[in-house]
């Protein structure tokens, strides 16, 4: 794991992994959009608004995955003082915030025709809103200090503490009565017998792959930018 804590080694890795991720994102996105928008049946209840799911659910998955990776990086930054881990948080927080915003907005657009309301304060919706605020808090804390390296420590603490929210989001629909429906894909074995018709599962999984690859590409690019910015800043100081 720490082999890539060295920025030079990280650069060698990202030199081929970044274009690969972006290529994979496009390769998965095109059939994902084709099946999602055109070649898949409407739902028996939601009709065509089921297509919002193909953006909403992958965005939610990536938003949570991004936070989990950030939480781990934050712990690494605090314990081993690896600079790269701190720069990763700085790079990824805005990306995660945008995926969370996409999840909240598309969820609202789906909620109005399906539930009859844009927004309710149920446990799932509220905990995802908290995730969005955590991302915003991490971005702001990172920038709140004169010495940016100290901001990285503060935002790391918030990122670690915020990890508590991830199981709350995941299990909110099981622990409490919520308006939001429970998960349809609960395990890998469920993929063989899903609550989602195979014709709808296909675009969902394609889009999930595309969003994940897009996130990896963006995370690598932005981490490299953060490395370069910090290098420039420290050189100017000396």
């Amino acid at each position: 794991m720490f082999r890539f804590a060295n920025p030079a080694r990280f650069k060698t890795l990202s030199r081929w992994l970044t274009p690969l991720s972006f290529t994979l994102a496009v390769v998965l996105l095109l059939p994902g959009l084709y099946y999602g928008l055109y070649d898949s049946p409407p739902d028996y209840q939601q009709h065509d608004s089921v297509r919002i799911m193909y953006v909403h659910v992958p965005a939610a998955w990536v938003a949570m995955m991004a936070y989990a990776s950030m939480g781990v990086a934050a712990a690494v930054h605090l314990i081993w003082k690896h600079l790269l881990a701190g720069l990763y948080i700085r790079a990824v927080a805005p990306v995660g915030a945008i995926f969370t915003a996409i999840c909240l907005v598309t969820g609202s657009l789906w909620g109005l025709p399906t539930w009859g309301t844009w927004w309710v304060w149920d446990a799932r919706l509220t905990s995802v809103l908290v995730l969005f605020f955590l991302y915003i808090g991490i971005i702001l804390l990172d920038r709140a200090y004169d010495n940016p390296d100290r901001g990285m420590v503060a935002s790391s603490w918030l990122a670690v503490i915020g990890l508590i929210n991830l199981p709350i989001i995941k299990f909110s629909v099981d622990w409490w009565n919520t308006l939001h429906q429970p998960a349809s894909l609960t395990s890998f074995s469920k993929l063989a017998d899903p609550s989602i018709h195979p014709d709808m599962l296909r675009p969902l999984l394609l889009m999930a792959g595309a969003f994940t690859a897009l996130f990896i590409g963006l995370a690598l690019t932005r981490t490299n930018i953060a490395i370069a910015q910090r290098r420039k800043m420290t050189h100017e100081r000396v």
Partner: protein
Amino acid sequence: MNRRQQRITAISLVLLGVACAAGLTLFALRDNVTFFLTPTDLVSASSRPFAGGKTIRLGGLVVYGTVEKNGLLTKFVVTDMNEDVPVEHEGIMPDLFREGQGIVATGTYDPDGVFRASQILAKHDEEYMPPEVAKTLEKYGHPGDAAQKGTP
């Protein structure tokens, strides 16, 4: 303990503390975190001040054959397979409202045993399928049909 072990301990303790705090808070607020009450909660919990003009939410399945429409006034019965509560709502119903559908009603549980709703939301389940599949399933018993077994 060296510095690194101290930091690991500190982070673990902080995480444990925050987890306990979050768990206790959510447990203490469980009545508020829960988005709606079931008909069983409403009927059996006589000790709680649910009846008496307090605005609450009631969730359950619409029992088959109980929906009566009279202009804007809609009457139906909501069940959780254990208890039934009659609901009245004056206003527009969501598109997904139909017999067997899960709904969440906001309103008051009046002393006459009728839940008068000011808003009806449709609850969607985790099943996604094309209309043809739903039709076939309906023939052989769709999960939503369980509402038919609700006590009359």
